[in-house]
């Protein structure tokens, strides 16, 4: 269910780090809790965020959810497809429903994040 090569936060975001680049999205658990996504609000390319900053919001019919980055970096790309097809967040949360890409700050530490197995367990206990 949860990709082995991603990291996960207790805010239910996933982080896929490749070199100094990191792709961020929300987890399958998060999209299921939220219900059908109708709007995704993402930051501007070039914005810099510190760890735990709010980077945007996802709205479903009934709820709004803030998205946080657990890692610091500068936004290099946002998933503009979601503007017209926000349902991709529900359909493929760990793939085509990705939200943003960042260039990570130097020396970023992923220690505080969970691996797939730990996250899976977290969703059962949370």
């Amino acid at each position, binding site marked *: 269910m949860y990709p082995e090569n991603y990291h996960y936060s207790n805010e239910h975001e996933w982080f896929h780090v490749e070199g100094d680049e990191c792709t961020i999205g929300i987890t399958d658990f998060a999209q299921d809790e939220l*219900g*059908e996504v*109708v*709007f995704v*609000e993402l930051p501007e390319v070039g914005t810099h965020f510190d760890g735990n900053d709010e980077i945007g*919001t996802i*709205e*479903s*019919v*009934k709820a*709004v959810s803030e998205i946080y980055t657990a890692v610091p970096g500068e936004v290099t790309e946002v998933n503009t497809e979601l503007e017209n097809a926000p349902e991709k967040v529900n359909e493929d949360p760990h793939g085509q429903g990705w939200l943003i890409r960042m260039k990570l700050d130097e020396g970023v530490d992923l220690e505080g994040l969970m691996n797939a197995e730990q996250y899976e367990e977290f969703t059962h206990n949370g």
Partner: protein
Amino acid sequence: MTTADLRRTPLFDVHVEASGKLVPFAGWEMPVQYSGLMEEHRAVRTAAGLFDVSHMGEVAVRGAGAEAFLQHLTPNDVGRLKEGRAHYSALLDEDGKYIDDLLVYRLREDQFILVVNAANTATDLEWIEDYAPDGVEVEDVSEEYALLALQGPRAVETLQALTETELAPIRYYGFRRGSVTGHPALLSRTGYTGEDGFELYLAPEAATEVWAALLDTGRGAGVIPAGLGARDTLRLEAGMALYGHELDRDTTPWEAQLGWTIKMGKGDFVGSRALAEAKERGPSALVVGFEITARGIAREGCVAYAAGTEIGKVTSGTFSPTLGKALGMAKLAVGHTALGYEFEIEVRGRRLPARVVEVPFYRRTKNA
């Protein structure tokens, strides 16, 4: 309130089995959705949805003085309510403001049932009993009824297959006593979705069987169970008020634009003097429909602005699954409520452009 304190309807186990997502609502543990809010919403607009609304309260009012009593207690004209008919009315306080909104069913000449909001049942009952004269019996009969709502264009044919009561002659807000799959029921052509359909008042023991039969029979037509989430988006598209949102102890029927339920000509009733004065003065605010003309959703409690000045608050707001845009209702100061009026609503620190639009947002196309 912990889960242990929440009440459960006779269909609780059925909801669990159907993977319903159960949430606390007005003191009850209720299904907010099953397969998904959007899917359920669309099913009601295109086929039919089946709702468990057994949490609603029912209060019986009986006795020779029942009509005169309800005529005094509620603002709609009970004198003109015939047996076999229901009407939309309210409990108003002496200031003419909402204690609750409700349906009044006239079962017999001297026998009525008031259907009230779950969250208000205890308050309502106390209020009603306080006003009841000798000779009028008031009884909380909520425990005696399970309430199912089958709503949507395929609702009537689905229900018709399970009852000998001829449904076609029953008009909107009419009802008949009959049976569904052999269980005694009150079949009422009412609802809270903007679609055609029926609400079925049943003995609690009958609920599970009738629920299953309706879903079995309707399966081919696309009938699915629907939760309170869809019920809320459906009623909002249909422009129907919800207590605690559009209606409260700070709102008169004039402000809520529900003047059609108030029969000033029938004589004095609770709140009538205050309502007459309020009508004379004119309302200071009105509940109106709005849509958001940018991306984003305004939700209940968001503040509305015009030229930087606060003009009111959103009472209900959502994304409309049928219309594909964000809309809602807001209580705005008069002078800012004309159709087409443009204003702003603050959502998480950002002001989104909005426009006053006609309510209901959605109107079903009636079959010829």
